[in-house]
């Protein structure tokens, strides 16, 4: 038994209690108009939701994936920085130079650009 485990069980329970309170106390009488999607007073047109979206959002997600991995490769370095010698430090610098070259290549290819007019 440790505190974190109890806390991890307790928080979802608290949220479920809140949801149950709403279920018990609130009225529920939906009708066709009430449960229709919100769309400026008209009925939503079928097939317009979940539309194809700008590919830039996808590109940013891919860039994030690579960069987050690279930053978390630095995490072991940061905690062991006082026990590795200057050899470990020079390896870190080489790793970081490669990372920077990749980043400059990405910026040079203009991947962050959202608008196509520029």
């Amino acid at each position, binding site marked *: 038994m440790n505190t974190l485990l109890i806390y991890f069980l307790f928080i979802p329970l608290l949220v479920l209690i809140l949801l149950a309170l709403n279920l018990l106390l609130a009225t529920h009488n939906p009708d066709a108009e009430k449960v229709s999607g919100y769309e400026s007073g008209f009925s939503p047109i079928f097939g317009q939701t979940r539309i194809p979206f700008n590919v830039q959002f996808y590109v940013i997600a891919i860039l994030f994936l690579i*960069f987050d991995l690279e930053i978390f490769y630095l995490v072991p370095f940061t905690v062991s*920085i006082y026990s590795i010698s200057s050899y470990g*430090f020079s390896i870190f610098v080489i790793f970081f130079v490669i990372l920077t070259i990749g980043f400059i290549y990405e910026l040079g290819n203009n991947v962050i650009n*959202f608008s196509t007019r520029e």
Partner: protein
Amino acid sequence: MLQALYLLLEGVTVIVPVLLAVAFMTIIERKVLAATQRRVGPNTVGYYGILQPFSDALKLIIKETVIPAQANKVLFYLAPVLAIIVSLLGWAVVPFGTGLALSDFSLGVIYTLTLSSFGIYGVLFAGWSANSKYAFLGSLRATAALISYELILSSAVIIIIVLTGSFNYTQIIESQIPVWFIVPLAPIFILFFIAILAETSRVPFDLQEAESELVAGFFTEHSSIIFVLFFLAEYSSIVLFSTLTSILFLGGYNCPMIFINDTYLNLESVILGLKTCIFCFMFVWFRSTFPRIRTDQIIKFCWVSLLPMVMAFIILVPCLLVSFDWIV
């Protein structure tokens, strides 16, 4: 069994003040916004309106939950539940005083970063499951901004870890006894604060809630209690990130020796609370001061301006340590 009850009591003693702090954060926001705009703000319920958030919460609990017919029901409920659980779980590793943490976890910083990454799923699920144009666009924009600023946040934290050499929050606070990290790392503090403004999606980065374009962003279709859960999650993460900023940069519960005692009146926690209040106020202050910027500007600002800067600091700080012979 008795031990489990005791541990549960420990959890309750953390979560009840946290929920109260979140409630008072909402009333602080409304009062400060009113003051900056020369209005009175809420002043009817309780003295000076301090009971307003409780009456709002009770009202929203007894409202009808309307679930759109086209929505994906399971994800629609799961999204706000996930958001609130993740933002409340972050309080498990926060030290409120010397040895006053639910869990003095040795990987506290990693734990916090992981939970803040998980918060993105709530936004993503909400926008996808509601099956509405506004919610979908709102969640796309929010996800892009959140994951971009996640990088700035974790990089800024990594620079602090370089100085402390530990992921443990208590050890980070102990190493700030000679000097608070805001003094040597002032530029990092600015980058970190910009990142947490974006992570909690506050003005000027609140593009997913751009009312004039997207109604209410990813929770357009959420009503009553599931809206309350999103609202609680947002304000809980504001208070949590304010606390973390004061722990990482303002020395947490560090205070002059005369204030430290073993009685029930623990002044260390009060000092941590006061430091947190400064940042909570700054969140509201920024909201009343800055205009909102466009979604592509936010992404571009992150990747073209902030990320090269934070990468430069990641290489600069260890190089300084090496050149002054702190790392042999």
